[in-house]
């Protein structure tokens, strides 16, 4: 039997180093029974997850600053366990720069971009945010769903910011091949395999195509279940060292480069 499934069935944690590079606080419109930061940390404790990098769900709208404040509070409540992505909303070039610098000064570890707001990632208002990420070598997490236009925009940013790790969230939710092509063109890109459906074989196919060294694990907690999202990696059949790279090794490298790993 799969050793991690066996451990879970015995009530034991996986016993691996794990960092969740895609997590949230806040809420969408549908029900999640316990959205509290405490419930996320409790889940992390059960699974042996060292740290989770969270963005507030209000990064999707013009109330992003409220969300950043909440994330900052969570970071202070759980130092080293909860890391922060600045939710970047395109208020305007100057305001974006001011907001990003403010929150990075508070110890946030990366930037989160979401195009649910209807504004493309290459909108001029975002320019300073991209430039700061490149200059400080901090990760940029982009919500993606495999569309040609979306990946084209992110690709332009990845090319212009070669020193910033570019994380493609929900890689493989649609258009698996398009993600593989993207990775061939952009050496600073990472596939973030967060996706509710956990398609059988997807993690393995990505690792075979681009290498485990270019993948990170995320769960989408507090929306999705962290244990369920871990299962897709445990069931992938990858060698242990590859799993370990996906689950934490690459994340630690990214965070270390950003100066945030020491706390994780």
């Amino acid at each position: 039997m799969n050793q991690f499934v066996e451990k879970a069935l015995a009530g034991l944690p996986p016993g691996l180093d794990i960092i969740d590079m895609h997590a949230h606080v806040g809420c969408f419109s549908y029900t999640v029974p316990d959205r509290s930061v405490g419930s996320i940390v409790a889940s992390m404790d059960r699974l042996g997850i060292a740290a989770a990098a969270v963005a507030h769900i209000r990064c999707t709208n013009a109330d992003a600053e409220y969300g950043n404040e909440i994330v900052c509070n969570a970071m202070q409540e759980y130092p080293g366990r909860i890391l922060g992505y600045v939710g970047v909303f395109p208020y305007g070039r100057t305001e974006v720069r001011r907001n990003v610098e403010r929150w990075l000064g508070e110890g946030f570890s990366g930037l989160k971009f979401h195009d649910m707001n209807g504004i493309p990632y290459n909108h001029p208002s975002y320019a300073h945010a991209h430039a700061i990420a490149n200059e400080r070598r901090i990760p940029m997490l982009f919500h993606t769903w495999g569309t040609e236009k979306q990946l084209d925009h992110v690709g332009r940013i990845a090319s212009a910011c070669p020193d910033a790790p570019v994380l493609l969230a929900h890689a493989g939710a649609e258009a698996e091949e398009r993600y593989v092509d993207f990775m061939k063109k952009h050496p600073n890109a990472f596939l973030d395999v967060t996706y509710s459906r956990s398609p059988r074989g997807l993690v393995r196919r990505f690792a075979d195509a681009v290498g485990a060294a270019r993948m990170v694990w995320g769960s989408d907690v507090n929306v999705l279940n962290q244990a369920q999202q871990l299962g897709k990696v445990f069931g992938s059949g990858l060698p242990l060292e590859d799993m370990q790279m996906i689950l934490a090794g690459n994340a630690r490298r990214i965070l270390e480069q950003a100066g945030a790993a020491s706390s994780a």
Partner: protein
Amino acid sequence: MDLFDAQCGALATEPGRTRRVAVDELLQSMDDCGITGALVRVAPGTLETDVDLANRRLFDACKPHDQLIPCPVVVPNSAGDLPSEEQQAADALANGAGAVWVRPSIDDWIVADWLCAPLFDALEAKHLPVFADAGMIDFHTMAAIAAKWPRLPFIYAGLHYRDQRKLVPLLRNFPNVHASIGSNYTVHSGLEHMVAQGLAKQLLFGTGFPESEPAAAVMLLACSPVSDADRQAIAAGNLVSLVAGAGR
């Protein structure tokens, strides 16, 4: 802990794939995840249009493996071109079925009393559980048929992580509805919340194989903070009871 998968299949293919999912793949996956039994459908179902052929292959494939319980497709004989609903139910039971699958959108029917009442009447008479996918039978329809046939158990699968607000009252109002926690039910804190609401007896372990990675569903159940008794009921006990009741 025993695991009995309520939501899995094999033997079919799907658009974009070049081969059918073999029963051996299912068995291997069950071994990898410690799954000791499975209610098996012909899946993925989108390209499987010959119900009679599919059911015969399913029965043949399950026969050599005690741990595989077939869940064949049934279709209303509303146009008079199929065996009667009673005959379909009897054939299913004669071939060891633990439940049957209704898939209106694939088999081109709709859930309306004037069309499918004879089918659900026949299934209720045989106490043969019905597997329904939320992608084909929405919550309104599920509630309506659960209310009309209250002695007929339903296995409701293919649920979404956005469904919690509808799922909890569905289960609370219709004790004959049982929900699979297989793909795409992936709610943070969702399982323990439903158990705390007293709904553990209506929850079933399921994986979503072959589309989804089974270890994901095992992890969800194994790592949720619920009592061992509730976990075991969800893992296998509830489905074992449903299947054992088929035909009785």
